[in-house]
């Protein structure tokens, strides 16, 4: 009776084996904590929480660098957090003596926000850096903590370059 459907039985057996193999594979691959809280690996939360804190926070910076805070208060960058440009510096805040942050290359870091882009609001200060500074570092003319142009600084720099 089953001889004429033997091929179908064999096909069904192959499919069943494939299904079982998939179920076994799934059980082996999918992390046990998956779905514990939602559509993600539940253990990931504890792992992330256990990671060392990278950012020190604005208050930690202000504790030591009050001169910079005063400078920032005079310009528009007062609203920009220190670590937005300087990067995560919790290690520096913990041990200021031995961990010193690297000096920033303003030709690169300023362009991240101020490179001209038609998608940015018109009121936002933006320049085509290639035309505007020709590759010069922005802090040649601007003081990053209070980016208003300092004419005296430009003159000094220009004179220095002239002497060379």
């Amino acid at each position, binding site marked *: 009776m089953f001889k004429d459907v*033997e091929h179908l039985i*064999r*096909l069904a057996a192959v499919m069943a084996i494939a299904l079982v193999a998939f179920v076994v594979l799934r059980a082996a691959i999918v992390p046990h904590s998956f779905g514990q809280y939602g559509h993600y690996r539940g253990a990931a939360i504890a792992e992330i929480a256990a990671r060392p804190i990278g950012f020190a926070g604005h208050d930690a910076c202000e504790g030591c660098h009050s001169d910079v805070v005063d400078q920032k208060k005079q310009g528009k960058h007062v609203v920009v957090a220190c670590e937005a440009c300087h990067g995560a510096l919790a290690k520096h805040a913990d041990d200021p003596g031995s961990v010193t942050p690297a000096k920033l290359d303003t030709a690169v870091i300023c362009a991240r926000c101020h490179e001209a882009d038609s998608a940015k609001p018109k009121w936002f200060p933006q320049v085509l850096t290639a035309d505007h500074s020709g590759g010069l570092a922005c802090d040649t003319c601007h003081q990053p903590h209070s980016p208003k142009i300092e004419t005296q600084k430009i003159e000094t720099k220009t004179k220095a370059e002239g002497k060379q």
Partner: protein
Amino acid sequence: MQIPVEGFMYPNEVELQWSVLIVLYPFITGLVAGAFILASLERVFRVDAVKPTYRLALLTALSFLLVAPLPLQLHLGHPGRSFEMYLTPHSSSAMAMFGFVYLWYLMAVLLLEIWLDYRRDIVVKSETSSGVTRFIYRVLTFGSNVISERSLRIDERLGYFITLIGIPSAFLLHGYVGFIFGSVKANPWWSSPLMPIVFIFSAMVSGIAAVMLLYMLSTRLRGRNVEIGCLDKIAQYLLYTFLIDFSLEMLDLIHRIYEADESFRSLDFMVHTRLWMSQVIVQILLGTVAPIALLGLTQVLKFTEVVRKRIYALAGCLTVVGIFAMRWNVVIGGQLFSKSFLGYTTYKMGFATREGLLTAIALMILPFGILWILVKLLPPWPDSGSIPALVTPPAHRTS
């Protein structure tokens, strides 16, 4: 490289995220669904005239279906991640559910139907061929050489049942692709409940046209004569489906014009500028009106066979180009305007990049390579007569 932008764009809109590969994806799945629906005409609705294309249509559908996920894989850039859809299915994500729609259509419909239809040929070839091909055929028999009359009758009945399930499945496959776009409520170019239906009918149009062209081309390459009765019938179905598809698209257009919501001026401007060539000229005039007019002429006027064949070939080519343009206008067009309706961006297609032109061309050639292999392995020609009868017809044998 600065992307030319006109007016105001939000920052994440300037660069297009969905490239030409995402244009290919609905185009390819459309061909799959359309080819399968053409095949089902013969099987379910007993349209004998299209019988010569039945197997070719099935193999075409399979070739394109195997390539369908590749544009997505290349776009994602992490092919391994696609397997996650099966391991940890996310029922609230339409995109994640595609994995299941795809798997169902591939495994439960297309492969099964092809296997049942070709089983007798496979068994015979496993006994008459030699070397590697013999091994391949033997694997495909699953070790059972039963080709008794009753077993073939059971295959036929089961195949019919699978085709019955296959038709809504093909609609589901491509309706789903339309759903992906139609359900993006933030994008007025896409967001329309008509989208899945328009996608289904345009899929049928492109699939029927593609199989018609492949049938003409393959018959010519084999030095045989095309069965004009078959071509006439396919062309007739193409015309009818096209008329429904065109009506639906026009309905959508008229609805948008009449409703004229807050996005209308922006979209209207886009159609008259950036999409003028691809939408109005290529998609609507060349890719829709022209083939409908050509196919319509063959229904009204008496042409000779040769003229009809040429008209069908021209109409078929225009149709495929037109449907590709439709996919382009949906995918690329939907990303060219700002959701603020105040600006427009430009699509810069890469050349030899992961999502560039060369990759797209390679992906479009690949299904034809697969089809060539499949045709060699499982000849779909009804007149091939290449399956010899067994010397001792085995009623019930197993190996």
